[in-house]
């Protein structure tokens, strides 16, 4: 026989328990509706911000591209200038840059003694230097020896050594002459 009604007396507690669950369901639905719309609103705001930012950046990009479009040819020119400039600097490394070193040496000698004269000077691109200094006065030569051992002179060189020392005897037409030959390497000036 088919049951037409529910026996609430027997299953009351059970029924109330399930009814409470379904009550929770209803409340959960209200919360979910609120969560759904809040989430929808928040995500919409975030997306809108992102899209607005994208539009703004695209606009900026377009404006900047417009400005730089006229500079395309200049960019090609700059690229060409850079390449040539690099070549120029590479080729300049092949140069001995003799004059600054010659001037440096000359002024150093003038600081030490008026009697010293630079007789020969040769320099290579790797700053290897050879020079000969001549003196006609022995006391000046002695004081010069002190000078070349001083920090003022030494600081200009990576290495420096006395290659030769010669005395050329006096003749009728020429006074006695002392020559000092040095070999070394300058410190880079630039």
């Amino acid at each position, binding site marked *: 026989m088919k*049951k037409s009604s*529910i026996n609430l007396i027997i*299953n009351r507690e059970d029924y109330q328990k399930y*009814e409470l669950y*379904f009550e929770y*369901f*209803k409340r959960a*639905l209200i919360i*979910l*509706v609120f969560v*759904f719309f809040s*989430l*929808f609103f928040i*995500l919409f705001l*975030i*997306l809108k911000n*992102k899209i607005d*930012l*994208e539009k703004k*950046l*695209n606009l*900026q*990009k377009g404006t*900047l*591209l417009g*400005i*730089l479009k006229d*500079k395309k*040819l*200049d*960019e*090609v*020119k*700059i*690229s*060409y*200038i*850079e*390449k*040539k*400039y690099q*070549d*120029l600097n590479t*080729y*300049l490394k*092949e*140069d*001995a840059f*003799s*004059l600054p070193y*010659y001037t440096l040496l000359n002024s150093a000698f003038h600081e030490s003694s008026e009697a010293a*004269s*630079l*007789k*020969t*000077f*040769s*320099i*290579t*691109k790797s700053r290897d230097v050879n020079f000969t200094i001549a003196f006609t006065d022995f006391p000046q030569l002695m004081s010069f020896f002190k000078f070349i051992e001083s920090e003022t002179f030494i600081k200009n060189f990576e290495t420096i050594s006395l290659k030769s020392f010669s005395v050329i005897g006096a003749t009728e037409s020429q006074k006695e002459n002392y020559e000092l030959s040095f070999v070394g390497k300058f410190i880079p000036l630039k």
Partner: protein
Amino acid sequence: MKIKPYLFRLIKQNAVYIISIFFLLVMIVFAIIIDLDRISSSELKIKALTKEVGLLQKKANLFQTTIPPTEKLDEDIKLLNSLIPNIEDYFSVIYSLETLSQKTGFFIVDYSVNVSKSSVDKLRLSVIGNGDSSSFIKFLDQYNFAGGRLITSDKIELNPELISAIKIDLTFYSKNVPVSGSSKLPTDDKIFKDLEAIKQKVSFDFSQTNPEDLDLSYPRKSNLF
């Protein structure tokens, strides 16, 4: 398992709520997945755009602050093409030596090409010049650029007592630089400052510079002396 009748009734009564909750949950999950995906792709786009705009802005700023105007760039190209021509031009070598002689007072009386030490982009000359020590020193000071061609000398021998027939090896350079697309722009104006300094040392006529001239070739002299 048999569902209790009152439970079945309760389910039936609340079916709308159950379906709504299920539907909302699905909607929330989908909304989160779809929107997060859109947000992350938008984030990537923004990141790429920001980088691109930053670079373009930097480039535009460089053009406004560091990079000289087009006329100056044309001058620089003309100067560099004169110093290092794309093709070796022997007339400009002679012209350069002549200019140096006139400027320094160190007169070059003879020269010979050192073939063994020359190459496609290097022309090595042994020159003999006359002049006193001060003119030779002036020559040493100016020979790099003052002739209008880049000249180097890898070894200098100086004898202050010798006033005639001073021999010196000079190297002239030429190199064909292909005109290519844009590269990374310089971040400072060092190149342009250096080139301005070189311009001061070179007597060079920039008045005929044509900004529309894109040939980027160096100027040839019609009158050598």
